[in-house]
């Protein structure tokens, strides 16, 4: 068994090779602890962070028995913007923030514009030309995404999330 070249104590589990011009010019065997200390590998996280989960779910908040930090309950399900971020920057993070922060937004709009509802043109007829989305397929995709996250199949979840986004943007038709 090869021992770690750094601490000489623990068994080496990681091999670092220096490559130059297509050939190996140097080699190091390290144990997991030393590799981590050197910043070569990242400590594997047993639990996925709330931010990553939030990103993966991308708006599936409020469903399922996930343990959720308090901030996530009030953050925008679309982009994760918190009410505090909004207060500090005065900018919204995504279109869905308008619903998420409706409570804060309406009085603000009233102050700025002396009105809180739109009068004027809307996409209407022209927007109808943008591919529409079958809500059933969307719901199905969301269910599968949630399931994938719960079972920690993150690669699959990420792909499902991208599919969902594409459909929401009207890039592709929803698939069953």
């Amino acid at each position, binding site marked *: 068994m090869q021992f770690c070249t750094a601490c000489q104590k623990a068994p080496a589990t990681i091999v670092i090779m220096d490559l130059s011009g297509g050939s190996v010019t140097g080699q190091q065997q390290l144990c997991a602890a030393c590799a981590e200390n050197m910043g070569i590998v990242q400590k594997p996280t047993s639990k996925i962070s709330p931010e990553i989960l939030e990103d993966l779910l991308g708006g599936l908040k409020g469903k399922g028995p996930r343990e959720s930090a308090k901030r996530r309950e009030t953050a925008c399900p679309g982009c994760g913007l918190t009410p505090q971020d909004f207060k500090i920057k005065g900018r919204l*993070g995504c*279109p869905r923030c308008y619903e998420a922060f409706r409570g804060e937004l309406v009085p*603000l709009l009233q102050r*700025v514009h*002396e009105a809180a509802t*739109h009068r004027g043109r809307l*996409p209407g007829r022209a927007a109808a*030309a943008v591919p529409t989305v079958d809500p059933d397929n969307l719901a199905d995709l969301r269910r599968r995404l949630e399931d994938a996250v719960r079972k920690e199949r993150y690669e699959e979840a990420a792909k499902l999330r991208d599919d969902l986004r594409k459909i929401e943007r009207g890039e592709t038709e929803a698939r069953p």
Partner: protein
Amino acid sequence: VSKKRRDDKPPQVVLGEWLQGKGPEADIAICTRVRLARNLQGFAFSTRMGDQEAAEIVKFVCDRIGKPALTEAPNLLDLDVLDELDRTVLVERHLISRELAGSKRPRAVAVDAAESVAIMVNEEDHLRVQVFQSSLQTEAAWRRAEALDEELMRRLPFAWSEEFGFLTSCPTNTGTGLRLSVMVHLPGLVWAEEIEKATNTAQKIHLAVRGLYGEGSRALGDFYQVSNQVTLGRAETQILADVALAVGRIVQWEREVREALLRGTARIRTLDRIHRALGTLERAQILSSEEALNCLSAIRFGIHTGVLDGFEVAQVNQALLLSQPGHLQRHTKERLTADDRDVRRAHLVRELLGCDP
């Protein structure tokens, strides 16, 4: 007073829609701009996205508006590919914002050859659609912007809601997303010290009056832009009517003040000011941006009030455009320090005004 023109012509340059100097009230109202803030469904707003998503937006938008090319804005420019000087030139031609030029995120702009349309991609909003129309032509500018917006809606899924209208990154643009601006030249109001009164009056009816050149509230060369503040709760037609009415009054006010400045005891002071400006531009060997703008403003005033003949507004407009740092350096095809630019600027303005260089 008439000015001898030399036979050889100064460098000719294409003036965009901005500086055409044609149309109603063109002596005071230089240009009308309609700007629409639009965002796409399914993406975070530009201010809250990473580089990868920003690149996706640029690709997505450019695919949709580039194939087939929009007739209104057929030329797509990747701002990452352009060098800093070219981006500065676009800023000085009012086609992109200084913020977009200096931004680190992937971004683009679609323009037309006449420089009457510029669609910024990944500014504060995913799209900032701008339509320019020379002089005071709010209706014409709006009709073109509306048609362009319709075309864009057929190609892109804009974010909107029945309640809030078009959804924008900043709540100050929500609703119509429409900012209608008219660029005005107000030397009369400035010289007669009535500009503050005019500005305050405009603010009372929710219009913003800002300096066109220079930072903050300083208005160099007496150029201002008047625009609506409110974008929500008023239909576009109402916003158009409000701005057109207010600008019409400001134009009228400016005319009255100009007449007063050329009457009675005020006249000789006004003539002195215009001729001193001309003297400076004809003789100066070192000319800062600020001094150039102030003198050119006086010359423009002198031409429009008939005090100076032998000059054309087009010459002044060219000088206004070409004496800016980016254009100066592109003209000379070399990087120049601020001091070098001041020397070049003095030379260029003398040349454009037909004086002995």
